[in-house]
């Protein structure tokens, strides 16, 4: 699947810097938009992208001081009943099992990636390995 737009959310600026590079390598033609603050993403998404027709990819950090990744998903689901166009990859540094349990009920979540992010890991999840 080719995504025109890829969103990154992570509270750590260094992680964002690195993840941007990985994502640009994964899909050079995509526009990559980064957020350090999940609330800022909500605002911008509402304003610009919620009516987008083509599928978009969101790489979402799970453990952020402002908000946990799945809390953001809850908020998104509350506002938008249909999130079919937003494909989510959870990116985590903590114990995977726990995070999987908490986020698995969200339909938009395609999979999980343990940090550090790599092109191979994205490919593996998105190609269903």
């Amino acid at each position, binding site marked *: 699947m080719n995504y025109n737009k890829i969103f990154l959310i992570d509270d750590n600026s*260094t*992680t964002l810097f*690195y993840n941007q590079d990985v994502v640009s390598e994964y899909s050079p033609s995509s526009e990559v938009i980064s957020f350090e603050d999940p609330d800022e993403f909500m605002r911008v998404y509402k304003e610009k992208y919620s009516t987008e027709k083509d599928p978009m990819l969101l790489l979402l950090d799970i453990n952020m*001081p402002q908000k946990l990744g799945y809390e953001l998903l809850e908020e998104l689901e509350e506002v938008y009943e249909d999130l079919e166009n937003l494909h989510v990859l959870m990116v985590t*540094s*903590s114990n995977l099992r726990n995070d999987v349990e908490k986020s698995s009920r969200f339909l938009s979540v395609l999979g999980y990636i343990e*940090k*550090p992010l790599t092109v191979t890991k994205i490919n593996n999840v998105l190609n269903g390995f």
Partner: protein
Amino acid sequence: MELENANRLTLRQLRKFPDDTLYTKENIAAFVKLVNDSYNSFDEERRLNNHVVDLSSKELNTINEQLNEKNEFLDSFNHGMAHDIKNHMSNITGLVTMLKKYHTRNEKIVVNTIIEKLELSSNQLTVIVQGFLYLSRAESNIDNQFNIINGEEVINAVKAETLFLTMDRDCEINYKFEIDKLFFSFHVIKIIFVNLISNSIKFSKKGVQAKINVSLIQNPESVVLSVSDNGIGMDLKNPNNKIFQLFNRTGDTKMVKGTGVGLFIIKKIVERNDGKIEVNSQLLEGTTFKITIPLK
């Protein structure tokens, strides 16, 4: 009635022995008294035993509670530590991969940015590990080594450990120590000051000289450590401001380098020393921490 029955029983037992001259009323009464007494003392012993069992189970309960508390602490400690350290490790691993890539392509500007970020990440990791070392020290008791405090020594140690923060900032730190042969833990004073001063520097206003007043006052029955600043302050009425919680880095704190360990360490140390912490803060005005620890 009971005694009579007992007497009769005793008599029956005694008749098994042939020497009749022993069976006088007095001897029997003395014997019964002996049996009675030993029963009473047995009873007393049992009561004492129960009391001891009761006491030790109370003691066990207390120890159990302490262990539970410690376990909970270790749980959140482990979780936070795993997350914090792993995040920085992933960043470093990722940045090294990136460095290789751009180095091969000879893209100097990107390479330089990566090196800067690597430096920042490894510094942050060092600070975190240092924080944990403090924390493990705060949890064990080796900080409770008491000595006569030398004010000069304290100030030098605090300066050395906050150097990496003060280096590139405009700040003025004033020390006011009123101590006379203060017998106290050097480590406790140092850790409290290092962490409070670090916070004051981290949360100073941008573009304004940070003014930090540090004082150590010895009273007849207590020692008072205080650090006040002209920093960004905080809204203490906000219930989300759980400033003493481990790894709590909410709101504005996320923009600041830190681990969320400092105030937690201080709280642990102060609690263990039966002291108290007072915080006064006003948004955009500054913050004052005052810690009082009783002298034993």
